[in-house]
């Protein structure tokens, strides 16, 4: 996985999304603001100002070399970047980052809501999904060195969600981070575009996706024997077998123990002619 070619206009340059000028986007935003005039005191509300700030931040982050290099370095080296590259985060920022990443993970491998008001998980299935499978633990797993970059990656998703909403006439719930306020079908539609190889910014999205799959399918932030002991939901869901009592895997019963096909007539000692 790699974070490269971070282009703030990735969504505009995608072959699947018509290119829009900034002035056009601003006009749409203004219309949207007027239409959604009743505001909410919630700190997570997405106003035009917040949107523009976000877009500006993303543009800055991806076009100003030192910042981008700092994030790339953090991801690349397996160690955290210098403190100067971290974004000071408020609790609401942290919540928004986590909620956004959880919603992203849930779109990849859906699960059931953890509690009635769970907004990150769409709740389209019963049983665990990538969120219960430890996606956030995986993304924060220290050896990856990815934690400092998570706010940017979440912001990347948020910006894509806002533009997706604008282009598809979707009204966002201003009390939630943009991607979280999309329904499951809309989240899926966005990810189909974002994860398409034609998207210049695909690498950042697919890197996140890969780690969500690794979390659910392998509990990659835990030793497997520990994950099994803890009843890791993903390993349980795929049916990963438990080890022997000594913590090692062995399968004394492994074979049907009978010939099940004829060998190729020209083969010899198991080799082709």
């Amino acid at each position, binding site marked *: *996985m*790699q974070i490269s070619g971070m282009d703030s206009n990735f969504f505009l340059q995608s072959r699947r999304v018509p290119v829009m000028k900034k002035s056009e986007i601003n006009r749409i935003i203004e219309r949207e603001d007027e239409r959604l005039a009743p505001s909410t005191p919630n700190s997570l509300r997405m106003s035009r100002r917040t949107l523009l700030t976000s877009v500006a931040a993303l543009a800055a982050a991806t076009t100003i070399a030192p910042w981008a290099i700092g994030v790339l370095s953090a*991801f*690349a*080296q*397996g160690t955290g970047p210098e403190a100067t590259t971290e974004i000071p985060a408020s609790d609401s920022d942290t919540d928004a980052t986590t909620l956004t990443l959880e919603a992203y993970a849930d*779109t*990849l*491998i*859906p699960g059931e809501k953890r509690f009635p008001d769970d907004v990150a998980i769409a709740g*389209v299935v019963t049983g665990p999904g990538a969120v219960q499978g430890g996606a956030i633990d995986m993304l924060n*797993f220290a*050896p990856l*060195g*990815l934690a400092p970059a998570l706010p940017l990656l979440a912001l990347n998703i948020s910006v894509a969600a806002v533009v997706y909403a604008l282009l598809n006439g979707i009204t966002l719930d201003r009390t939630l981070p943009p991607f979280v306020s999309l329904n499951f079908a809309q989240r899926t539609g966005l*990810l*189909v575009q974002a*994860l398409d*190889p034609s998207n210049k910014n695909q690498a950042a999205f697919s890197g996140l*996706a*890969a780690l969500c*799959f*690794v979390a659910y*399918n*392998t*509990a*990659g*932030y835990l*030793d*497997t*024997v520990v994950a099994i002991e803890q009843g890791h939901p993903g*390993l349980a*869901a*795929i*049916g*990963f077998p438990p*080890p022997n009592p000594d913590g*090692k*895997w*062995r*399968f*004394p*019963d*492994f*074979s*049907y*123990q*009978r010939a*099940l*096909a*004829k*060998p*190729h*007539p*020209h*083969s010899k*000692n*198991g*080799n*082709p002619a």
Partner: protein
Amino acid sequence: MANETTDVLIIGTGFGGSIPGYYLAAAGAKVIMLERGPRFSTEDFTQSLRIGTFNRFIDSIQCKGIDVTAGNCVGGSSVTYYAASLRAPSFIFERRGTLGRRIWPKSITRQKLNHWYSRVEAAIPVAELSWNDVPYAGGVFAAACNRAGHTCQPVPLAVDLTKCTNCNWMHTGCIFDAKRSMLFNYIPAAESFGAEIRPLHEVQKIQPAQTAGYRYAISYLEIDPSDYTKSLGSGTIEAKIVIVAAGTMGTPVILQRSAVALGGMPPAVGRYMSANGDRVSFAAFNEDKVSSLLGLQRAPDVAYDAFPIGKPINTMTFDYLDPKAPEFSRFALQQLYSPPIVNALPGVDESPFWFGIDKRNLLTQWRSWMAIVEMTEDANEGVFGPPPKTGSFTRLGPGVASGQLEYSIAPQTQYGFNLADAAAESILTLDGLATFHTVASTKNIQCAHPLASCRIGDNPETSALDDCHELRGHPGIFVTDGASVPTSLCVNPSLTIAALAERASSLLLKRANQYGIAVKHGGAIPVPS
């Protein structure tokens, strides 16, 4: 301070480095082997999928159009491979490729290579599986082939069957000493004759030597064992002979970086890379059909449900290896275990194709899955770009790197993929036995068998090495690893890499005297430890 000197400097300790390392040391040469990765032994291996364990010695190298898996430790990919040890079909050595002329040197045919295959099979040693040794997954594949009217047979493996526990953790090393990597045969044999192995020494460049009597100076960085992106020092060793065996993904990069200092490189260095025609697909079996159609039952009311049980490779069919069939239409189908770290790969029928609700449902059937590797004839379309500043690629994180290779699938390769997909699907889905799933999460080829990035041949334009594995225009530099294998093989390549290294070692011993190294000939086959 004078540089350190040696008779023979070997870059890499996989199949291609260990084998000549043994024969040259046994013949009396002073041999130093530099390995960029760490040295692990049995107690260092784990049965764990935690990031930071297995990826200390396995790299996933993400490139344009292709993702390559390669070993990074003493023993190279032999430590991480699935131990399938097969001789390549005879027609492979007669391939003509897209250029329409023979690719392999005329001096090498299957018949001539059989002698060297036999030596490797004895040294490793390779075991023939009986049906009693074939795990459930291999049995299901064989029964499916049989029911579809095809032959299928157990695959010879570099495994000590008396020690194997069928745990299916071969990809993280082997904690039971059952997998016969180079750590159990050629490497200890080489060390018993004085060969010195230096792990965490990453060779960067080869230059002309300054010391009289020595041809080349090899510069290296000492790698920090806790962070492979950092170096702890550097050094240079001068040698009379250099054997480059840094692997298909490493060898051409070192040579490219050395081009200016050495006065140029043959045009085929870093070109004509083959992915061995690798194509991975998946099947999800209907357990009831496994029982009713194949008549298999492993326990009361359990037909298969055993993907994670066994050895990773067990059975394959040779039915599509017809020597009279046109080139690019021939392939082998082999049953395979894939650890769940790659569970993102298989696709589903409906959008979004590899994630979402349908994919989640497919994951719940994981124990009824099977992976299939189709090994086809590709068109050697891989090309390496300019080398990075250091190393073979740019490390992005634990076990993940970005490489310079670009692989754009040629129509001939795609044709073979399509035929192999159709064949596998027809066998596995017959009468609803299983559903068939191609890779959908990425467009990149998934390659575990990179080859041919610095290949042998008779044509100087299309082969960087002569038929003695010597680099054209650079006497005393030899390449003996997977990079030297000229084409895809339609089988797993480790035994052919090793057999070519055995053959090259014999030729090297003859050349060594010419290059000022006093050696005696005729090293015996090493006795496995």
